[in-house]
């Protein structure tokens, strides 16, 4: 995760801006260097998507499930 993304995540957490957290954690997952890091961030995106009834919850679930990370 680059510093800019890290900074934005901290700001979004401070604001409890969950919808933005879905987007930022999805970006963090896309940029992650390893599978474990990718699915760690994708899990966070998924959880905040569940929390907010975000439109991406379904697709994030499918990705996690197909990777054996969710059931």
């Amino acid at each position, binding site marked *: 995760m680059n510093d800019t993304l890290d900074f934005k995540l901290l700001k979004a957490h401070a604001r409890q801006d969950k919808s933005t957290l879905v987007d930022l954690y999805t970006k963090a997952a896309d940029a992650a260097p390893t599978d*474990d*890091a990718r699915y*760690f961030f994708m899990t966070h995106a*998924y959880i905040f998507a569940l929390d907010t*009834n975000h439109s991406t919850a379904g697709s994030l679930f499918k990705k*996690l499930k197909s990777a054996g990370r969710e059931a």
Partner: protein
Amino acid sequence: MSTPTDLSNVRQSVDKAHGLPNAHYIDPKVFDEEKDALLFSQWSGLAVAADVPEVGDAVPFDFLGMPLLLVRDRDTKVRVYQNICRHRGMILVDEPRKIEGAIRCPYHSWCYGLDGRLVSTPHVGGPGQNVHASIDKNKLSLIEVRSHVWRDVVWINVSGNAPDFEDAMCEVIDRWTEFDQPLFHGGDDSKFTLTVDTNWKLAVENYCESYHLPWVHPGLNSYSRLEDHYHIEKPGHHSGQGTLVYRQLRDDNGNTFEDFAGLSDKWDTSAEYIAAYPNVLLGVHRDHAFAIILVPHGPERTSEHVHLYYATDNSDASLREKNSVQWKEVFTEDVGVVEGMQRGRHAIGFDGGHFSPVMDSPTHCFHDWCAGNIDAARAAKQAAE
């Protein structure tokens, strides 16, 4: 409790009976005993469905020390859960709010649907691994508390083993079938809470009887005399009082609330007030109704949550406000006596009191119900030992 109270006097006929002993109003151990015998094992009032009017509305409650969560699910059904995560027992929702998607635990973010299903357990199998063989989500839904909505009151049976609500409350349901029709909560101007330094049972006892009306509510004397009232008694179920001279509230132009549909002539001038044991006080009139939920906060403190209902969803706001003010005055007039009786329970020589066989039988009916259920719980406990 090492020495249970003696309830043999309580269960005699009203002309010979004493009221419940002092300990049933002031002793924390007896309060705990009654919590199980009279509240958790029965159908108790928790809240009203109007507290969660929209899908996703969630309101936490502390009911006798137990954290509960009232929600309206996506099928618009009102549900009650224990307000704890199945993971570490963390409180899930700590203030009323709208659940947009899932109920997410603030600790490790386990997520639950409004239907109680455990949806996700993030990182439970390690970072980025959200499953583990030992965590069966199907077995870890939120713990649902048995609930039922009647007359907009959300009734709960914490123990889970009371008879079905319709059976347990059949007597009062049957009595008021004419009022089994849509009720519309009057909104924010039609609810208020009184917090009273009294045991919850004294609020029930005072509500049951009309004996006190001319003394405590002298304003009623002008049109509603003591002899215009009658007792309502169904041993083992409910008790209360009725009046034959209910007079509708009118605004300056003589307008009244709309009546409930199809009522028989009896209700032109009658109204009834019933304590549905244990802790819900209900009232019906031709043009409005109310529910009071008594929430005990220890042996000597109770909050009374009053909700007023109408036959239509467009009742006049100024008339509603006038009605709320009127009822708040009446219920506030009762505060002094229920708090006074509570202080009186600290008198060591008080023997529970002696009833008027003519005027106090609805109160005795409640005491008999309490004593019967406490005796039954004690017998069951003894048998299990």
